[in-house]
């Protein structure tokens, strides 16, 4: 049968499944040698691990994305975290599923990655590779300094699941929502302290903000209502973007509050995961629909969507 094919005769057999072939050739090898890069990378992974138990890791030639798509199971929150690989890795090579789709999509448990990285902070080098052991794994191989001339190698094999290409559409970058108000957040630590205390009183919290730089966090129960007010926060100048979205900022009354009532634990979880102050932290609110938190760090950006509840 093979010979008939080679002769180029009428091909009665179905074409070979190219996607299946190429999947086996997926390769990923990257190396970190700089102490600061390793530390930052670990910190990013640790932050992600505090936000979700599992998520999708998308690897492209230039970037790494940690994606959580909003499903009922995780209460509708979704996350998009973007890192530029050049900021962390000294060497980075990948071959995706195919040449048209030069990307690798894996389902990972970030906590495993975080634990693996935490213990090798003093490594001379750390390699991250996609391997196949008893199942597909991300192998973290660290070369540790020792007193003798020979380095010690510690490897952690973190099991991952390969996401088939037909599901990739679920993990696309979220588009900027048509928000009502966009405002800079107060210092995250302050916000966390407030939210921590409010959590003891109620399961739901209302975030409201206006284009005058004012934001309130409110809870209300039968017995008590508590409200914390922030002023002079400033509003990001989306400017042209705002008008492109068809909502010119001038038409909205700056005093007009947009609000969303969210599950307080989701907000608390988001705040708990942050370990370092970001360069910029903002919140977009779509009235009674969703809050969209954006954190920009030097080397990564994180977007987190928390849906509003009735």
């Amino acid at each position, binding site marked *: 049968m093979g010979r008939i094919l080679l002769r180029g005769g009428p091909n009665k057999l179905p074409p070979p499944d190219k996607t299946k072939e190429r999947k086996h050739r997926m390769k990923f090898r990257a190396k970190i040698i700089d102490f600061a890069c390793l530390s930052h990378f670990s910190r990013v992974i640790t932050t992600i691990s505090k936000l979700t138990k599992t998520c999708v890791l998308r690897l492209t030639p230039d970037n790494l994305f940690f994606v959580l798509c909003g499903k009922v199971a995780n209460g509708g929150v979704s996350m998009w975290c973007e890192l530029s690989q050049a900021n962390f890795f000294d060497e980075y090579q990948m071959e995706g599923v195919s040449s048209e789709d030069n990307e690798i999509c894996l389902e990972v448990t970030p906590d495993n990655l975080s634990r*693996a990285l935490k*213990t090798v902070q003093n490594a001379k080098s750390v390699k991250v590779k996609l391997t196949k052991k008893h199942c597909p794994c991300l192998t973290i191989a660290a070369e540790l300094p*020792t007193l003798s*001339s*020979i380095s*010690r190698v510690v490897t*952690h094999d973190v099991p991952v699941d390969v996401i088939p290409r037909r599901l990739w559409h679920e993990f696309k970058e979220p588009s900027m929502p048509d928000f009502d108000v966009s405002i800079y957040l107060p210092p995250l630590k302050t916000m966390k302290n407030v939210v921590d205390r409010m959590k003891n009183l109620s399961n739901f919290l209302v975030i409201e903000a206006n284009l005058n730089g004012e934001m309130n966090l409110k809870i209300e129960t039968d017995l008590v209502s508590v409200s914390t007010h922030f002023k002079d926060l400033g509003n990001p100048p989306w400017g042209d973007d705002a008008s492109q979205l068809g909502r010119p900022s001038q038409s909205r009354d700056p005093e007009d509050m947009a609000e969303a009532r969210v599950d307080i634990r989701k907000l608390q979880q988001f705040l708990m995961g942050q370990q370092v102050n970001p360069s910029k932290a903002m919140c977009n609110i779509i009235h009674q629909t969703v809050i969209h938190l954006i954190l920009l760090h030097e080397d990564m950006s994180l977007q987190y969507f928390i849906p509003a509840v009735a």
Partner: protein
Amino acid sequence: MICVLEGNGVKVFGKAVHALSRIGETLWLDPGVKGLALRSVNAAHSAYGCFLFSPLFFHTFSLAPASGRRGEAPQCELLTKSLLPLFRCLTSIERNVERCRISIGDRSDQVEIQFFCRHGITKTHSLRFQESEALQAVFASHLCPNVLKAPARLLSDMVLHFPVSQEEITLSTTHLKVGLRNYSEGGNDRRKMMCTQMFLHPDEFDSLQIGVDSDITFCLKELRGFLSFAESHFLQVSIRFGAAGKPVCFSVEDMVLEATVVLATLIDSDSWDSSQLNVADAPPTARCADAAELPVDLHNADSSNAADMTEWVASSQGSPTMHPPSLMQLLPQIYEPDTLHAPDKACDRASATPASTTICSLLFRALSSELDDGGCTSRLPVLACYSDMEEDMEDLSKIPSP
């Protein structure tokens, strides 16, 4: 017995209590001429720890029986959770406690621990104890084919890579390298578990003597406290072990104290070196913590033997020992590494609870090693046997002693 600890000694003693608290729920204070031994065994009898403080460790140490007591100072069985709180906060002990006095025997059923603190404050704690013979693991460490010696720091650094929840790890040794990896039981979970592995070059060890290449798997949890103790005192740890299934012994010593932890290792019938053991009956895996089913009766030797035993403390380096005659009979029955053809009676009967056979025999099987090596080693007493054996006592009495 009355002993007094001064200054830093209190902290060291406290650290030993911490280390032992990781092992078992009961702790024995076992005074003797060699000093005061603290011992603990875990519920599954798969881990044993002993800290022996020589009389030199103490400011004063006296075995003299208190008034009203006859005979030697008793072996006191205490609940770890009664003793641990006294030493829980080591930094505050370091700052405040000047002297600590431990006395057994002033009152018949209480140990009195007094802390003489700064500003003239004295805290007195009385802990009730149960008088019972301490379980001791006997381990013919000088017969182990493999011996590794390394600074505690190296071992601590290695176990740091394993998560705190990691139950068991596997140590594989060959002449060329020493490897450590985490151990997980088979099953679906295994696919999802992170595997961690590392290799050490022989140069990293102070000394490496490998008689037989082996892979041993043991509980890490119970070892951590001991390693932390060893590391804080900058001691060198000696690891003595043999093939899979035989216990592994970790020990440290300095001028005034000796500490030992003996851990059972899993018998892995899949491993290539299992042919060395005649334990084909045993199941391939048995969790260290798994032997809840195993009842262990303490064999109460009569008082004359009790006197002998108090002279002998664990972490023995092959020191000659006395033994109660009836127990000795058990040994040939259990430990016959040469009879590959016939499973032991013990194994047979206990095959109904295979896990228990594996677990209980793992530790006390330490005695099994080379019985032909002189009469002395074959007479090491087992101080604990499982109740299954009691039925056999009558049969055994008919067997001539070796």
